[in-house]
């Protein structure tokens, strides 16, 4: 006999998914910051937050948006490396970062490039397209925000775009590589 009703079960699932998203993105932000501190000249080379966000968006869809947003706000408040940025702008960045993966996914959906898994393997081309689109949109949106706040004097667009690209690619690769291999091994163990 089920103790919980269907609504309660849905709420519990929604709550647990979002809690995991918050913790996951927060820890990804923490890990990225620590990795950045090892070699400060390569800041932004590994952006695990974006990889985690993309994985969560693909796996859970729209349900996980609140968790992604809250996790991004927390991570940006504590772990964003630029000290001279006001907290409001950090929140705006977090909102941009958490919304744009969905826009990128919608964009790819329009062009029928949204099949990321088929014949027991990830389709790398589609995943790379999603990464690239997310990082381009993120960089451009950040430039617009900086421009509107007149903070672009020391801001080099192409450098920022390149760093964002490489960070997003490496972060997404690391997150997907780790979890896909773990999942396959986990499934094999469960079959045994």
């Amino acid at each position, binding site marked *: 006999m089920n103790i919980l009703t269907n609504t309660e079960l849905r709420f519990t699932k929604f709550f647990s998914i979002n809690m995991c998203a918050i913790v*996951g993105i927060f820890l990804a932000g923490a*890990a990225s910051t620590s990795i950045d501190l090892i070699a400060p000249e390569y800041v932004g080379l590994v952006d695990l937050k974006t990889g985690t966000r993309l994985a969560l968006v693909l796996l859970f869809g729209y349900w996980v948006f609140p968790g992604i947003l809250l996790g991004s706000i927390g991570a940006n408040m504590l772990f964003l490396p630029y000290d001279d940025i006001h907290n409001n702008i950090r929140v705006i960045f977090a909102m941009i970062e958490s919304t744009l993966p969905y826009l990128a996914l919608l964009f790819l959906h329009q062009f029928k490039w949204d099949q990321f898994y088929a014949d027991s393997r990830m389709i790398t081309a589609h995943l790379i397209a999603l990464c690239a689109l997310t990082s381009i949109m993120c960089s451009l949106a950040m430039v617009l925000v900086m421009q509107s706040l007149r903070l672009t004097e020391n801001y080099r667009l192409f450098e920022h775009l390149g760093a964002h690209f490489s960070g997003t690619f490496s972060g997404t690769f690391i997150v997907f590589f780790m979890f896909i291999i773990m*999942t396959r091994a986990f499934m094999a163990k469960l079959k045994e």
Partner: protein
Amino acid sequence: VNINKWLLCNSAAVVAVFVFGAATVSVENSFVWLHNIFDMPTGARLGMLLIFGLICFPGTLVGSLLVGVAFIEPGESINVKLLEESAGAFSALIALLMMHYFKLSNFYTKESFYYPHVLFLCILTALLSATGRLIVLVQFDQIDKGFNYSEYIGSVLLSNLFGTLVFFTLAIFIMQAFRQYFVQHTTDY
């Protein structure tokens, strides 16, 4: 052993232990009151050893050593740090072997992990890890007069338990989601 599989397992183990070690360092630096409360590399080591089996032990050891080298604090001896991290890695291995020996190694159900055995493994790992680290500290004369042994062991035990809890919750959640995703998007599964 298939060399490709071995390499994949070990690289995943290195990445997992290093990433979770990096996250722990950053969280501890941001929240000072959380110092020594979350030791997520232990969770990652145990998770990797349970998921991939003993073949990924070299990966967990290398990941632990990388964490020790990369995130060394000022004034801390690198030899002590590396030995402490090695003690952490070996304690997970020894605890797993002990549980195999005593026939308590039924870590999986049909759907997920079997938590009583995983919890016992975690406690055993924490005790062995605390003992190993303590031996390293004694050998290198790192213990002051006011050092409280029971507090140290308690803190290691607590941090390992919390770290393992966080890692397993996240990993199980995401792995189950990936599993469902694979099943939904595969016709030949």
